[in-house]
């Protein structure tokens, strides 16, 4: 049962809520509303005339095959980033949860990458993977593989996925580690006495008890991959080569800021917003049912 606070003053509750509402209105509803409004407008090249064109911007987008490529890119990119960053973080957290001698140092080192700004992370990975400068790139080539993220779309996608996933691992690791620490030791011990070996113990006891954490992180990671990876992509590939790494959020920027198509860019951000809302509600609908709280 929730306790209901009763106010005698009619203005006080609104006054208490006002700061929060103000922040949300100024930083979300207002720009979002502007985006929706702008998505119905068409400006000429010199910004001298603006026409209200109803859904023309949307119609134009959906008729453009390149837009579907971008959507496809985004889905691949997000899925890979989420899967790689979640699974590596879980693996690291399970290992860090063991009573190791230098566990504290190990944990701290694993958390550091989260403090690196996305653009810096991008530059860092570029230095390693640049076809002519990168140490790692040389290693890959020495092994006989072709590697050129500046020219090859798949290589470029691999590179941005790695950088974006790497940056998110620390965050996921931290939550997984806290989730593991919250599982009572005696439950795992009881499973051991019940004849379950470590691997089976993990999949039948530990992982099911981690599902609330994993679900939360899945939602956060998908949103991260959709929006927050802009810096990584901008620093590394600018969406190239040949738009192979252009995700929806990058295209919003490229078309709006670089291409000057404000209406089309606004229409894209509205679509992007709806995709994320839809994805998140699907996750809550279908995956949350399988979560053990």
């Amino acid at each position, binding site marked *: 049962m929730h306790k209901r606070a009763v106010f005698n003053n009619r203005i006080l509750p609104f006054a208490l809520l006002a700061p929060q509402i103000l922040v949300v209105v100024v930083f979300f509803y207002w720009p979002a509303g502007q985006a929706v409004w702008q998505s119905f407008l068409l400006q000429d090249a010199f910004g001298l005339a603006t026409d209200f064109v109803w859904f023309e911007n949307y119609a134009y987008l959906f008729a453009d095959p390149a837009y579907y490529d971008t959507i496809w890119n985004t889905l691949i990119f997000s899925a890979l980033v989420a899967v790689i960053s979640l699974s590596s973080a879980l693996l690291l957290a399970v290992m860090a949860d063991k009573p190791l001698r230098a566990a504290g140092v190990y944990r701290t080192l694993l958390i550091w990458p989260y403090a690196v700004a996305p653009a810096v992370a991008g530059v860092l990975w570029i230095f390693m993977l640049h076809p002519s400068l990168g140490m790692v790139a040389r290693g890959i080539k020495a092994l006989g593989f072709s590697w050129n993220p500046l020219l090859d779309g798949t290589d470029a996608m691999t590179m941005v996925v790695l950088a974006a996933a790497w940056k998110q691992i620390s965050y996921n690791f931290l939550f997984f580690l806290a989730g593991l620490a919250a599982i009572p030791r005696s*439950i795992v011990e*009881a499973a051991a*006495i*019940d004849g379950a070996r470590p691997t089976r113990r993990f999949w039948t006891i530990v992982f099911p008890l981690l599902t609330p954490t994993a679900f939360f992180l899945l939602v956060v990671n998908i949103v991260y991959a959709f929006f927050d990876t802009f810096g990584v992509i901008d620093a590394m590939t600018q969406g190239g080569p040949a738009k192979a790494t252009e995700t929806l959020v990058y295209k919003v920027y490229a078309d709006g800021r670089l291409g000057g198509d404000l209406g089309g860019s606004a229409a894209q951000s509205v679509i992007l917003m709806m995709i994320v809302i839809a994805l998140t509600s699907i996750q809550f609908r279908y995956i949350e049912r399988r979560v053990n709280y």
Partner: protein
Amino acid sequence: MAGVKLEEVRKVYAGNVEAVKGVSFEVPDGHFCVLVGPSGCGKSTLLRMIAGLETTTSGVISIGGEVVNHVEPSERDIAMVFQNYALYPHMNVYNNLAYGLRNRRTPKPEIDQRVREAARILEIEPLLARKPRELSGGQRQRVAMGRAIVRKPKAFLFDEPLSNLDAKLRVSMRVEIKKLQRSLGTTSIYVTHDQLEAMTLADMLVVMNVGRVEQIGPPLEIYERPATTFVAAFIGAPPMNLLRMKAQEAAALIDGAAIGIPEDGAIVGVRPEDLSLSTDGSQPAGGITLGLIVNAVERVGPETFVYGSVERGDDIIVRVPGQDAPGAGERVVAVARREKLHRFSTDGSRRLGD
């Protein structure tokens, strides 16, 4: 089913903390052994070593004649009931019971039959579809017991299983555990700090203190003949009165020379229930007479505890039946017969005479 044997078992933690200092005892097949002692005496550590949840620094632990020092807990074929029950929160009761059987690849029909059998014995059949969080403390306790018996292990290990229950439930579960263990005949090792639980459950009582065994034996024998002053004070409630006295002091308090207190003195013990209040000041032949000033009186109904102090300052508890007792501030005389006196060496580590 199998006996459990410990030989010179030691546990040293990092930082040279010695939690268990060379413990040896043997629980014969089918016996109910209770490890009792104050918190920090190493009893839980010892139990966890038998389970395989802690490594053994030195010594030998064997279950059913097989040395298990380096055997994984999952391979030891034992079951353990934890203090917090440690039920799997995401599984219903049925799956909690079936988990151990599934891990051992028991055929499905047999799992079903054994789970239902265990549920019937513990009267938790209506709860099989529920999750642990939907159960009361007593029901969780039953499920934890069920999880232990369903596997038919070589031995049951209990780690203070009743300490999270309320007082009334604790008594009834205690009786049930005893009945269950008798009917199944499975070797059991039970850890508790509650001396009443220890006395009522054990066939074999192991009293521990600071990592050492103080005494091993049937509970009543330990009550009758405690080997050290620690055991004397720990087993029995209220604890035994212990009086340190020199030979001539003893001669003044105790009638007759036959009691034989060494020249350098001894600790003389007498249980509160063996003392009685004398109204006429008479002294039983060969017994002890203590002049007391009553400090406090506790009436609990069927009996009354009289707290007093002797002239020298020692506090004495006398347990008298009924509710008839002197008031605070009164002078009384407490007496006990000679055969009710216990004598210990001055450091309390040895029982004297008999």
